[in-house]
């Protein structure tokens, strides 16, 4: 659904842009392609790597790892899986919901969801290309620590 909105937006703006200035529109498309081509190698590497990680860490294995241990140990395992995997939301949320139903802790699920979204070890090379090493590593480390804070609050309120 959301994809179509994006296509519609891009299409509308592209037509408006083309009507106003053909040369500029051509330049925009050239830039679009160049920005994409610029990240393509890392992008392919990331996706291929995610394919491997997800094959070895299938939803089944993830469930077992996440549902197994409670407390800090469980949170740390959850945070590591969340940080290294690149799971699309439409797979991750149902897994998380199923785990909750099967008795996994709120805190463990919260740390998993939060690191999954905010921490990206696999995408770090791309981030470094954009922001440099120091800032990228700082951002990921802060996000990692922050995920535990989220987990603690959710664990206390809901747990």
């Amino acid at each position, binding site marked *: 659904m959301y994809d179509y909105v994006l296509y519609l937006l*891009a299409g509308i703006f592209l037509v408006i*842009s083309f009507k106003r200035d053909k040369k500029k529109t051509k330049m925009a498309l050239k830039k679009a392609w160049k920005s994409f081509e610029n990240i393509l190698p890392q992008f392919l590497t990331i996706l291929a790597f995610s394919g491997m990680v997800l094959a070895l860490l299938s939803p089944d294995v993830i469930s077992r790892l996440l549902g197994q241990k409670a407390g800090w140990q469980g949170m740390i395992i959850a945070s590591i899986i969340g940080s290294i995997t690149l799971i699309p939301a439409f797979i991750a949320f149902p897994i998380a919901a199923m785990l909750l139903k099967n008795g996994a802790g709120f805190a463990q699920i919260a740390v998993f969801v*939060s690191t999954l979204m905010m921490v990206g070890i696999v995408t770090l090379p791309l981030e470094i290309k954009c922001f440099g090493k120091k800032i990228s590593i700082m951002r990921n480390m802060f996000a990692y620590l922050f995920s535990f804070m989220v987990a603690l609050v959710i664990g206390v309120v809901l747990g």
Partner: protein
Amino acid sequence: MKIIFKRYLGFIIILVLNIILFIIDRKNGLSSITIFGSIIFQMAKILPPIFVLLGLMDVWIPRETMEKFMGEKSGLLGILIAFFFGSFAAGPLYAAFPIAIILMKKGAKFLNILIFIGAWSTTKVPMFLFETASLGWRFSVIRLIMSIFGVITIGYAIELLISKKEKEDLYNKVRLMQ
């Protein structure tokens, strides 16, 4: 040729590893390739409009406009714009990095860039709706509220921890790109 090889070296290494995995473990090796294919397909669906919008933004938005709304003196408005921009986006986090580069090139303030990236990573609206549906609204709302504070705090923290020179170097590097 050599340059292309060097650029795609990481990808080639993963492919070789994948072939090795396939030899050792047929089932997982095959599913790895299948998953790779399906992720590529999903990305091929969502990335074209994002990059087209990025290109249009680059040629049409004047530097002065960006400076006014997201630049050094943009204050609270800049933060809000960064938040909304990131939250209403779609696509994976790595699609946000090229956009961040354009924003920096146009003179957006670094704090706003960090907030934009943070919002894109974790307070996206479509994602939030999906999260509510699967994990319940209490879980999602607490996480959302905390994330809003978290994104701003992390933004300020990084901004404080890097020197003015580091920031200038980054902006200079970005300006030379493309």
